[in-house]
């Protein structure tokens, strides 16, 4: 089993080196690639100086385009499992084997790490939890799948679904949309419990002002998928 970890990084000069070093300790069996999404700070210099494995996008594509680039790279290089892993230190690499295991057994195409199953570790603010509950419910209504952490960016995907994501991947805030797309395309999805940390440095890509826009856009996307209006990348 060849496992690739995609680490999207945008202005993560404070975190990225720690994240990679921790990853090498906690999950020595994986390959990794950092997607530098045209960072404005010294991220690229740090990647170069430390000879880390990275892809550098010439234009800022946002999180969706960056992750999709990682999927393309993973599919090109024949990886069996591709894992999405945040570059800001929120995710804990020791859970990677938990995410990979069900995929190795061939039970599921995608496994998401959920911080709300065992309710351990960093649980984020109550407003954000409320938003996540709304998204979980919308996903459940539209796809029938039971998800407890719709916005989790910590997930493992098998080769087949990675190929699908190469051609269908939402660009702005892609996590909940990716779940809908995968579900409606007939892929099997599940969750495992993980513990997440509060980010150690840098700024989260979603601030409070953007949250309203985020909710409206994602809900709209979920419902449009359900209606079956959109046929992209066929």
């Amino acid at each position, binding site marked *: 089993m060849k496992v690739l970890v995609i680490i999207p990084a945008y202005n993560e000069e404070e975190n990225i080196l720690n994240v990679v070093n921790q990853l090498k300790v906690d999950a020595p069996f994986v390959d990794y*690639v950092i*997607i530098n999404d045209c960072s404005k700070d010294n991220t690229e210099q740090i990647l170069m100086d430390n000879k880390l494995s*990275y*892809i*550098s*996008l*010439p*234009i800022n*594509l946002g999180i969706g*385009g960056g992750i*999709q*680039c990682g999927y*393309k*790279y993973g599919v*090109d290089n024949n990886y069996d499992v591709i894992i999405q892993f945040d570059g800001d230190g929120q995710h804990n690499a020791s859970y990677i084997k938990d995410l990979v295991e069900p995929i190795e057994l061939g039970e599921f195409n995608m496994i998401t790490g959920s911080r709300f199953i065992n309710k351990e570790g960093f649980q984020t603010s109550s407003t954000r939890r409320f938003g996540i509950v709304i998204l979980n419910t919308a996903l459940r209504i539209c796809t029938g799948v039971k998800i407890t952490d719709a916005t989790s960016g910590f997930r493992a995907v098998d080769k087949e679904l990675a190929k699908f994501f190469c051609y269908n991947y939402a*660009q702005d805030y892609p996590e909940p949309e990716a779940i809908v797309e995968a579900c409606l395309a007939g892929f099997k999805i599940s969750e495992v419990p993980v513990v997440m940390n509060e980010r150690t440095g840098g700024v989260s890509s979603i601030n409070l002002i953007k949250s309203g826009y985020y909710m409206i856009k994602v809900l709209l996307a979920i419902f449009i998928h359900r209606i079956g209006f959109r046929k992209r990348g066929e």
Partner: protein
Amino acid sequence: MMTVKLQICLIIGVVIYLIIILNLIKKKRLNLKYSLLWIVTAVIMIVIAAFPKLATYVANAMGIYSVVNAVFIIAGLFALLIILSLTSIVSKQTERIVSLTQEQAILERRIRSLEDNIEDNNKEK
């Protein structure tokens, strides 16, 4: 009824508009594929100006009292249609740019690792 004055103004306006479009196409500053919608709307506007009875018919059918208002509404709807088609073109192009960017970045990485390999080989020699 549409006045003869308005008819003449409309026809002159649309003719100027058509000349500009055709000129842009000739200079290759406007892609023929994207200009078709513009030309079609121009032709329809000329037809309406030349045969005002058509506009009267449309006005009656839509329940608009004044024919002139019907002409304005039709022109406005065409403008909306063109804007929508532009948004659709922009979306398509965004998708293509994203795809190209990703492909370029993956190739850049491949070149980088090939260069590193060559360097390592040279050192061994």
